[in-house]
């Protein structure tokens, strides 16, 4: 059923002005919103790195942080001399973990999270284990790669 009543002049003007003002607002807000979204920066395609320190200068029962692309990794030499590497980003809230030679395992200083030498979360708040890396030794060089 068609309404017989015509639109009032005020209503007509209200609509025109309202949609124009809305359009104007969108034309300001859209570029500003797009501007604030950070542009994609190509993620590092690193799949393996050669560490800047040699096996021979790496004491047992110690750990060191290394760069894996843009991310920190942790290299551990156990008391038995075995080499193991994990992502150093704590699975709890993204702090960088460290090796505790007194505890003989990995520890996060931010919220007292503990990980064993296999990267498993054994105490404290971390919900998941640390992702592990592949470690290869070529002569004296240590090569770390993604699993």
């Amino acid at each position, binding site marked *: 059923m068609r309404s017989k009543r015509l639109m009032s002049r005020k*209503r007509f003007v209200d609509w025109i002005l309202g949609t124009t003002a809305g359009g*104007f607002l969108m034309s300001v807000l859209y570029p*500003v919103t*797009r*501007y604030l979204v950070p542009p994609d920066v190509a993620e590092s395609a690193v799949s393996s790195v050669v560490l800047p320190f040699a096996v021979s200068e790496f004491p047992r029962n110690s750990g060191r942080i290394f760069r894996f692309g843009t991310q920190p990794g942790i290299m551990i030499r156990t008391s038995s001399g075995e080499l193991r590497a994990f992502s150093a980003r704590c699975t709890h809230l993204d702090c960088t973990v460290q090796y505790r030679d007194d505890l003989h395992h990995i520890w996060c200083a931010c919220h007292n999270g503990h990980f064993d030498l296999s990267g498993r979360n054994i105490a404290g708040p971390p919900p998941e284990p640390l992702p592990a890396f592949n470690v290869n030794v070529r002569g004296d060089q240590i090569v770390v790669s993604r699993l």
Partner: protein
Amino acid sequence: MTEQRHAGAMRRLWQWLDYRVGLSELLPLARKKRVPIHRHTFWYYMGGMLVFLFMLQVATGVLLLFYYRPSSEGAFESIQFLMAEVEFGWLIRSIHAWGANLMVFTAFVHMFSVYLLKAYRAPRELTWMTGAGLLFLAMGLGFTGYLLPWNELAFFATRVGTEIPAVIPGVGPFIREFLRGGDDVTGATLTRFYALHISVLPGLMILLVGLHVLLVQRHGMSVPPSVEAEGGGKTSISFFPNFVLRDLVGWLSALAILAAMAAFFPAELGEKADPFASAPIGIKPEWYFMFMFQSLKYFPARVLGVEGELVGVLAFGFMAAVLVLMPFLDRGGKDGRPDPFWNILAWGTLLYIIVLTYVGYTADSTL
């Protein structure tokens, strides 16, 4: 039906706010102000336009801070990234750059119109003086902002600009060192200019604008003596909402012009500054410094045994002092009529600025 419900919701929101903020007390204040209507009413729009342009500069400036890195290693690259990678980065930067130019231009128009319409007469002396301070602040913002992209042009313009005050006997070399943050224009200068550009000068500007607008509100709009003499300026319109509506139309037009300028002539970046490269041919400052820059070229090395540069700097310092103290220098002519000397001075100065700016842009800079 829905319209009524809508209006009811708006009324309740108004009442809620009014109870807590006291909005209804402000209404009579806004309605009390009236704007005289006469043949020079057009010039009353300049002040409001400047408020809008300043707000636009603050908004786009804050957006630029999201990507800008204030260091000699990172500044140029961060703007390259902004222009090439960030969506609409070119638009925000170009509006900021064009907006700055339009703001300084409008400030000059505002100043000359207020001057020629004699709006600085008692009791509006302080309004005029805060306005002169605002003009200097706007030029300072232009000068400090010019360096921030850390490109070749900005680097040499800043070297020249900070060298000029060094000719002042006694404090000159200290001022140069202070502005540069050392002997030369380096990354230390950049962080200094950055601090001035994004916090010190805008902060002072907000304070002075507040004072300036408060005084305008207190005294109301000045009716020029020429209009008063003809018996005009008796009719007026209400500032709110009648004049504000016209202001808004002006603001929207200014934004449209700026967006068009940004789209058709985006701000350039040029070459990265290299302190060990020769100054490029045709080095020039922003257009509003051009008349001073060009004047300094004409001063001989020595004038009456004094360094020519110093004479030039003192002359411009004298001009600035005359500008600030204008309300006290113009005592008015005989029988209450304006003294024509001051009008002649203003037109002469305007002509001088236009001619020197024109020459600065057209004269062959290799001769």
